[in-house]
């Protein structure tokens, strides 16, 4: 009786674990097969190389979406990376314990804010600011979306970079200070190079977060899919924004398949980022063996996928 109970319990738990593994496979399988079906309607060259995505003439070229995503994410990381790095250095090397705790709560709250609230603030603050400072147009566009993303990527980058810096052995700091380095010389010449694999991981996962962000970007980017982005100030789109804008209304099977293909591309991009991080992690020598487990809320900050 007890033995049988044990076996039943174990198989239930194994089933639960198997469901997790199978979900990932199903995700790839279904979006992949339904998405690749688009090549039954158009050839891959058309899909990947055409500079227009227009449901009216049934022409689905993914370039405007890709270019929009690339520009938005690139611009956001250009600001967000250094900012997050500065904050994490402040938290590990400069701030006294109580201040550090406050900063951690602040970073966790940035992660906890719903995307739609970022979007709402983007609409009421960032878009008018862009319109008035740079003139012309509605203010909706790549620049506005990037500014919103700068804040949305902070929790991911800060929490991972903070862990990487904290995991460095104390002897590095002592050694640098003992030979007379100032704190900044120690940070710049010793700590940052030593923590590099972890810092790169932080930025890569921040990229993943930014690439997948949907609603906040969709609310401020203007959602123009029919042409390549003209400037940072005029309307554009990103891959997730196009999906959420068009999929609920897509009626033709071709349009649906094209949008699902975009989702599949997103999936491929994020999986490659994870694979890159893994590869770098197994190669990098500075991977600490005794890694402090981050708090649950910090983990949410780190893993939260884009909404």
């Amino acid at each position, binding site marked *: 009786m*007890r*033995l049988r109970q044990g076996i039943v319990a*174990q198989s*239930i*738990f194994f*089933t*639960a*674990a198997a*469901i*997790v*593994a199978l*979900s*990932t496979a*199903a*995700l790839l399988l*279904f979006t992949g097969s339904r998405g690749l079906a688009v090549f039954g309607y158009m050839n891959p060259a058309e899909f990947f190389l055409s500079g227009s995505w227009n449901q009216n003439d049934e022409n689905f070229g993914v370039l405007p979406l890709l270019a929009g995503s690339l520009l938005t994410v690139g611009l956001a990381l250009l600001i967000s990376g250094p*900012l997050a790095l*500065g*904050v994490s*250095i*402040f938290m590990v090397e*400069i701030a006294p314990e109580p201040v550090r705790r406050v*900063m951690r709560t*602040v*970073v*966790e709250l*940035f992660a*906890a*804010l719903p*995307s*739609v609230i970022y979007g*709402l603030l983007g*609409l*009421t603050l960032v878009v008018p600011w862009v319109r008035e400072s740079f003139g012309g147009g509605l203010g909706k566009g790549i620049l506005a979306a990037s500014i919103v993303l700068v*804040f949305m990527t*902070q929790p991911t980058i800060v929490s991972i970079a903070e862990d990487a810096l904290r995991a460095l052995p104390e002897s590095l700091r002592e050694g640098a200070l003992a030979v007379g380095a100032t704190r*900044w*010389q120690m940070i*710049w010449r010793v700590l940052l190079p030593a923590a590099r694999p972890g810092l790169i991981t932080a930025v890569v*996962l921040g990229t993943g977060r930014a690439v*997948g962000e*949907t609603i906040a970007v*969709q609310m401020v980017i203007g959602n123009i899919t029919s042409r390549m982005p003209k400037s940072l100030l005029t309307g554009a789109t990103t891959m997730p924004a196009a*999906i*959420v804008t068009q*999929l*609920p209304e897509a009626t033709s099977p071709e349009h649906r398949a094209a949008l*699902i293909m975009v*989702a599949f591309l997103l999936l491929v991009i*994020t999986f490659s980022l*994870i694979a890159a991080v893994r590869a770098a992690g197994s190669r990098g020598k500075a991977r600490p063996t005794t890694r402090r*487990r981050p*708090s*649950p*809320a910090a*983990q949410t900050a780190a*893993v939260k*996928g*884009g*909404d």
Partner: protein
Amino acid sequence: MNSDTREILATKDVAWERRIMAARRRATLIDRAMTGVMSLAALFLVIVLSGVIFIILRAGLPAISWTFLTTASSITDPGGGIGPQIWVTMYILVLSLAIVTPIGVGAAIYLSEYARPGPITNAIRFSTEALASVPSVVFGVFGAIVFLTIMNLGFSVLSGSLTLALLNLPLMVRIAEDAIRAVPTAYREASLALGGSRWETIRKAVLPSALPGIITALVLTGGRIIGETAPLILTTGTTISPNAQYSLNPLQTGETLAVHIWVLKIVGVPGLQDAQLVADGSAAVLLLIVLIINVGMAYFTNRLTQRLRGASGAPRAGGSKKG
């Protein structure tokens, strides 16, 4: 050593020391400047966050009243509330937690108590990690394919809950597994030594100690479910049928609070004059819920760690019993 060389050495020393002093001064200056820059970066985030909270609450709090929270929304007349949206939000919250909790905790128990190192465990771990990185809109697309089309559930509360359950699975597994692993090995050994089977050990010794951690996982997952937008637009829909506003039927379409804000601001409700006010009010309600959850959680975990530290002497072994 004659006096000439001594003189040369002395002058060299002075020049050398001057250079060192200059370099030191410069280094100290740079050090101070960079300390300032990094402190400013942190201060900037604090200011932005406080600004965000202040702006949302200032715009939204005046709209909030008991009537606003309980009456049905209107697409024509001003003065409508968000009662049905809150109802749908809570419904989806409960339903997806009811789906994700048993699977997530079950998988976590398997990974921490049963799994042996090997290809199957590796595959499960890699899947969890990969699943955690998937953008939520992709889950929405997957839900639209599998739950709406293949399982023919249509735009419905059930489709949305299933999608969100899947989306939160990796987070649930990760936090629950951490909580279970944090249970001291001594507890397991004591239970096994008293003749308990492995299942009895898990049920009576491990799970009760891991319960606070599992509750943390539940609350954090709940916070994410409440704020989710994109996957729900693709699976639950953006409308609530006027004649089924507080329906328990999981096959109804639905609109959560977060989606409601998006609809009001982006899709637009042309006939509604106070759409801006309703959106602001909804945003304030959403923000308050999220703040309460997170601040409450921080307080709760702080208390918990303090209590655990207080009861110290007990080994806080992180490792789990294997094999």
